[in-house]
């Protein structure tokens, strides 16, 4: 099922024409109504009239998270306050939160893109959507809510937490679609198992999981344990919330709703644009947002854009699963390495806990990577040579993943920072 065939399946030419029309409009609105943009445009000696083609977007300044913070709370709003009907904020875990303001039309667009996303996951009027994303300032809960209501599905606004009640309602109501973070989906499956609930007692057919980075391995595990189809959703509070992109049942990339959000990929180091199929940082521009237009927002998320035909029939551009953040991207002996790659290698080894820390040093003008993992009963032995074999095995796995030799060291259990919240994964001692 496709929610909006006209928008989701339009030809590339038609799409580009629409994007250009909307881009020139939004740039003009931003310039004329937001002091921040006027100032930045003037500094770079660029004017809205300079946007004549889509490529001209390269002339415009980037907007960073810091810019949004500096404008806290309402500095980037482009409409008078009486037109703003809702606000959300980011969690503020990496500093002061940023605020996102919505007009009624913005909320309608949000509902529209989330309706498209949920439809990709098979949602229809008859479905019961158990929405375990948090309701409140966080965009997850209400984003799914608006999409579900647009479709006319039944939304169970259970919000996050209270796992026992979640699984009770899941069984009693017969929820068919689950929306939450992928780690919470795994947690739910643990509790279901501990409570002895048979998988047949659960009617879930699909899940829309996002708001954190996850891997194909996690998808496989969630699908096996909950017996559903696990799909990836992507979004950012700064842009709108969930519903910037959604995976279809082909499960090979997320469709970006590029009639509303214009995507670019740049090299995070020199900020030069990259083309399709090249890996870099995702930059997004809102094409239709009234309350708070965002021009060229640096998401820090690392992905690749693909312009291939999708079996599902949609012509929306696709992005790969997020594989890292440009702020934790490491360059080791010239090779780009993401902590998530090391994590994937670690998770592939039976008995290893996903707790690790990466230490980068440069002892003799050459970068060295040390990966600390916690010792466990499975890894430990009374014989030195066994432990060294295990160490070598982990080093080989990581080598296969990143192409570099690392040194594994074992540390005592519970001695590394835990992944709840934003754990410090990388300690760079190179003094670069």
């Amino acid at each position: 099922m496709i929610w909006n065939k006209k928008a989701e399946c339009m030809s590339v030419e038609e799409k580009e024409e629409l994007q250009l029309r909307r881009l020139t409009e939004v740039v003009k609105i931003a310039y004329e109504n937001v002091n921040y943009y006027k100032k930045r445009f003037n500094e770079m000696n660029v004017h809205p009239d300079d946007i004549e083609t889509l490529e001209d977007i390269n002339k415009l300044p980037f907007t960073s998270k810091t810019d949004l913070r500096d404008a806290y709370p309402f500095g980037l709003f482009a409409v008078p306050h009486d037109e703003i009907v809702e606000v959300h904020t980011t969690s503020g875990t990496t500093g002061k939160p940023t605020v996102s303001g919505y007009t009624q039309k913005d909320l309608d667009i949000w509902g529209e893109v989330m309706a498209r996303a949920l439809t990709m996951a098979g949602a229809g009027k008859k479905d019961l959507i158990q929405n375990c994303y948090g309701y409140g300032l966080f965009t997850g809960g209400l984003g799914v809510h608006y999409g579900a209501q647009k479709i006319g599905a039944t939304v169970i606004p259970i919000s996050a937490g209270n796992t026992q009640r979640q699984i009770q309602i899941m069984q009693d109501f017969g929820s068919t679609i689950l929306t939450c973070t992928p780690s919470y989906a795994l947690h739910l499956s643990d509790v279901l198992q501990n409570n002895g609930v048979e998988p047949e007692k659960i009617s879930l057919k699909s899940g829309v999981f996002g708001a954190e980075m996850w891997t194909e391995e996690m998808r496989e595990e969630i699908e096996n344990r909950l017996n559903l189809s696990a799909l990836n959703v992507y979004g950012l509070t700064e842009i709108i919330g969930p519903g910037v992109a959604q995976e279809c049942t082909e499960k090979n990339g997320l469709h970006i709703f590029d009639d509303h959000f214009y995507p670019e990929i740049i090299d995070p180091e020199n900020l030069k644009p990259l083309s399709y199929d090249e890996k870099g940082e995702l930059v997004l521009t809102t094409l239709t947002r009234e309350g708070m237009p965002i021009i060229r927002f640096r998401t820090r998320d690392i992905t690749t854009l693909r312009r291939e035909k999708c079996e599902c029939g949609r012509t929306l551009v696709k992005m790969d699963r997020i594989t890292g953040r440009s702020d934790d991207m490491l360059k080791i002996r010239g090779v780009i390495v993401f902590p998530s790659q090391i994590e994937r290698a670690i998770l592939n080894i039976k008995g290893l806990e996903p707790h690790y820390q990466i230490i980068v040093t440069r002892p003799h003008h050459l970068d060295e990577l040390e990966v600390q993992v916690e010792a466990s009963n499975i890894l430990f032995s009374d014989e030195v040579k066994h432990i060294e074999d295990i160490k070598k095995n982990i080093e080989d796995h990581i080598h296969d993943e990143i192409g570099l030799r690392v040194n594994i060291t074992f540390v005592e259990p519970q001695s590394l920072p835990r992944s709840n919240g934003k754990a410090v994964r990388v300690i760079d001692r190179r003094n670069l």
Partner: protein
Amino acid sequence: MKLKQISVFLENRKGRLWKALNILSEAKINIRALSIADTSEFGILRMIVPQPNEAIHILEENNFVVQINDVIGVAVPDEPGGLDKILGILNKSDINVEYLYAFVEKKREQAMVVLKTEDINAGIKALKDGNITILSSEEIYNL
């Protein structure tokens, strides 16, 4: 007769050996024999204690990684050539020794040897055939 040995993972960090031994001391667990294997990055503390399960429980409660495994305990006369005889027997039977450690018991003028062979059962059989006294757990604990 096999002997239960516990091994404790020691991170290469100040005070870790002391911490492990302090936990056992507080729990009033007496250590009958002990050795440490050390590498540049970590250590393995191997011990024979009369209450291995209790020792494991208390160490794990304190976040140590602990393993239990079988080793062989033998008594040899406390005189020149005592250990030579044992190793000679194993060598003749083509049995590899992974590690061993020894301690001397004053009262009986005997040396106790704790050893691990690649194949424990083959090691015990070879030693028995060579008329070496294999010690039971009780014998070691009651020394």
